[in-house]
């Protein structure tokens, strides 16, 4: 298993349990799309639950220099959930994708964008 010493992008997917706030079909499409794409990613059962119990997994998910795509819900909720678990996300390099408002297709397209084009975008910014 490779660590994040390189600046290669990471993906974190939240499977949002207990409530149907994320449409189940969006969740399924994104999870299957990620798994079928052959890219590496971290998947968590429920970021809210991990934050409530301050699970150390959040520390590792927030750690490292690599840019990270978090696929979950509203960015403000995700940011402060990590903060609540004393695992604050870095100020730069984090993109949060909202499965409550985006389609599965749009989410996958954004997350699976080829790494080279992401780097170019970032270099231009």
């Amino acid at each position, binding site marked *: *298993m*490779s*660590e*994040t010493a*390189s600046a*290669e*992008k*990471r*993906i*974190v997917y939240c*499977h949002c*349990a*207990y*409530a149907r*706030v994320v449409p189940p079909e969006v969740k399924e499409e994104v*999870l*299957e799309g*990620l*798994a*079928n*794409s*052959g*890219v*590496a*990613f*971290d*998947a*968590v*059962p*429920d*970021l*809210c*639950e*991990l*934050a*409530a*119990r*301050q*699970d*150390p*997994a959040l520390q*590792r*998910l927030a*750690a*490292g220099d*690599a840019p990270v795509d978090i696929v979950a*819900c*509203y*960015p*403000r*909720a*995700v940011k*402060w*959930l990590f*903060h*609540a*678990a*004393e695992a604050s996300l870095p100020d730069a390099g984090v993109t949060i994708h909202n499965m*409550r408002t985006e389609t599965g297709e749009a989410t996958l397209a954004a997350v699976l964008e080829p*790494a080279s084009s992401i780097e170019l975008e970032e270099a231009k910014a």
Partner: protein
Amino acid sequence: MSAAEATVRVVLDQQDGPILAPERRNAVLRSLLEGGYTVTVTGDERSVSPLDDAELLVLRELGAEADHDSESTEGGLPVRVRGVADLDDVGVLEMVQRHGHGRVAPEWKPWFPVIDYDRCTNCMQCLSFCLFGVYDVDHEKQIDVANPDKCKTNCPACSRVCPEVAILFPKYKNGPINGDIVQAEDVDREKMKTDISSLLGGNIYSLLRQRHEHAASRFSKERDETRALKERKRCLAKLQKDFDIPAEVLDQLPSAEAILEKARGASTKSEE
């Protein structure tokens, strides 16, 4: 909040090629997530989160015969390798469950307030209002969600008293409480204050501002019990309907005096 111990980290190892047929692999992945496990899927592109103290349980496309299973260490951590070629999603989940727990409290829906500290002014109104001891102050005298598991499931009441719209419930259906962007009209303090103060049978916040004995005694004497009760009932019904506050929570609301006392305690805590 208090920190949990590191749980097992399941790795679907695809370094040497895809693990299982896509449909079965996806069913395994889904069942592990639904069982409460964090899963790292390795692959050709992208990296994954770094190693930490979590024990690694690496699942590979191997038969389940014992000689395939191995135990080793990576960076001082135990690494267990298990073959899953002969197992379906239920079998994989059962095997993983023998190695470590996933969900700690499966019966608890993670429903609790999350504070947006970019907006919070540390006014302590949430601490005064919450009936269940969810809030406290931390060592820097800042408001803190100290006991998230004490929060009443599906009750967003404290987010309604926050004058800064700083309290989120990520699993709530509507914005801005669910974390959606806060619009100017959301910061409608007067409306919120009116609703909550009439619920309590008096303007608790102005009372708080005049925290001297005279005001406190006038508060208790001037109340007409019957009218206050009627008004309270009317407001409870309105709050329940408008703000999704569970009846169970409304039934347990303490008296205005009790809340005033709690608010005094909160204010003292933040000043100590």
